[in-house]
């Protein structure tokens, strides 16, 4: 990859929550390249969300550092950072029944001064983002009336309007049913083809094949391995990640991951 500059470089980073006696993340070093789709895979509590919050700048590394587009993350102001990195959080933000359009419009915050109101151009961008995702007809619905899949699409629209080059998605499919999961993963792929760097966390290895180009395997705050997804989806590495026997089936260029049946529970 020599000539391409990495979007994100993590150098020997560790992180410990205040008051804790153990590192939540230990000695992590990674490089993430423009236009790639990276999946952060690991069991619950392995530090996936912590890593995402560090990339976002919400948490500060205890040791080591993070470079965003070649610059130390903490030399960038919060505003500068928010124009580079967008977030689709794990839980949605719909406390009050805002119209969808007004919700999407909030993605313009990094470009507005403290007392500046969004203008026609901002509204136009929000309408465009909704149209791009095929949900232009939702503009005037209240966000509290949306289904799980619709909520996720609307949140994506908000992040599109923010125009970051890097998108962090925290478990983007964990609350979704099968068709919606498929739609969101296809969207992730499509956005990477438009040049966005996509990074998402997941605890489901089956959301990776055909979507993520590289995978970071995490367990108990450590990166077990990182690399191209075809190499990472091996029985050995996945078993190590999850601490149970995992089997990987490949057929017709498709890959399925499952826990090897050890008949721990008997039906009889």
């Amino acid at each position, binding site marked *: 990859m020599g000539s391409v500059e990495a979007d994100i470089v993590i150098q020997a980073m560790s992180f410990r929550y205040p008051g804790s006696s153990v590192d939540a993340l230990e000695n992590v070093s990674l490089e993430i390249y423009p236009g790639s789709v990276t999946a952060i895979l690991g069991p619950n509590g392995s530090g996936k969300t912590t890593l995402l919050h560090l990339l976002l700048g919400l948490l500060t590394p205890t040791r080591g550092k993070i470079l965003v587009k070649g610059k130390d993350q903490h030399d960038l102001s919060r505003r500068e950072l928010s124009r580079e990195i967008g977030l689709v959080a794990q839980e949605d933000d719909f406390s009050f029944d805002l119209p969808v359009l*007004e919700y999407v419009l*909030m993605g313009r915050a990094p470009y507005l001064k403290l007392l500046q109101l969004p203008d026609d151009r901002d509204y136009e961008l929000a309408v465009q983002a909704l149209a791009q995702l095929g949900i232009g007809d939702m503009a005037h619905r209240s966000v509290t009336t949306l289904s799980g899949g619709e909520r996720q699409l609307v949140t994506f629209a908000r992040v599109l309007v923010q125009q970051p080059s890097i998108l962090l998605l925290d478990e983007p499919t964990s609350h979704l049913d099968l068709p919606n999961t498929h739609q969101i993963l296809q969207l992730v792929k499509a956005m990477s083809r438009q040049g966005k760097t996509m990074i998402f966390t997941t605890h489901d290895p089956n959301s990776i094949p055909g979507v993520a180009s590289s995978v970071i395997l995490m367990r108990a705050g450590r990166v077990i391995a990182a690399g191209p997804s075809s190499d990472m989806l091996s029985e050995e590495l996945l078993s190590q990640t999850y601490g149970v026997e995992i089997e990987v089936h490949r057929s017709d260029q498709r890959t399925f991951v499952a826990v090897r049946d050890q008949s721990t529970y008997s039906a009889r």
Partner: protein
Amino acid sequence: MTDVTIAYRKKRWGWTLLAVLVLIFLLSLLLGRYPVPFITPPSLFWNDPRALQLLLHIRLPRIIAAFLTGMVLAAAGTVLQMVFRNPLVDTGFLGVSQGAGFGASLAIVALGGSPAMIQLCAGLFAMLGLGISYFFARRIRLGDWILRLVLAGISVSALFSAGGSVLKYMADPLKQLPDITFWLMGGLWSITWPDVIQILPVTCICLVVMYLMRWRLNLLAMRDETIFSLGVSAGRERLVLLLAAVSGTAVIVSKAGLVGWVGLIVPHITRRLLGADAQTTLPGSMLLGGIFVLLGDNAARTVLSGEIPLGIITSFFGATLFLFLLLRGGVSVKRK
């Protein structure tokens, strides 16, 4: 274009509310018990110099104070509900009003009771009330955030009320006690021009600050990590808005006493009428709050030959409306 329709809708609502307000304002000038009960014929103001005096020196300042009271309390309620992402909070539920009432009582009983001292004490204790409520809400281990904040707020309010009772017990029954009792019921009967001029600067600044930050309120009602990802300094902006809401409330409470339920019910009604976008909800709440309290105060000074305390009227109608909205599903608490 879709955005044009939205802008149009907002404007039309604004003008309607403003027109209603002007009408009620003019009507309020005519309402009273002197020289004739209920409606004073406008011609009297030209013929009877005393009626004109009464209009300019008693009714007008009182009407302005009533309107300011409604604007500030409703705006503060909207701000608190959005900043705490909790549709069930209000200055009366977060220890702000009771704190201000306690501060005012303390100033009367122990610190001489000058207007400046009353406002200062009311302001300090209002902030203290909010601070303590927030502190405990973060530490209670029962229920979700909405419930915790309500529980902490009610407890802190009760503590300040109890403290207020102690002060009442200690107060001079002839000189101080009537003053204190007045805070607890809320009312505008003693308002004169000097009072209005005393509260005008702070309340106007607070209202302008809240109004200018109306779009930010939408942002601040989101989850912390999302707000951060949008490059917003949530802590600082919340602090500015809370300072504006609490100082405005404290100054109002120091003059008008405890006028309850305005900050809870008006934002709910406004959201139902105009939607939850703070760009419309905040100015809408200010206007509707002003109308609500002005109507309440008109009733307070007109219905009986004696004065009905304003706080009793707003609580009665506020609580009734709230129950009605609850039954009709107009109060949505969707957040986990």
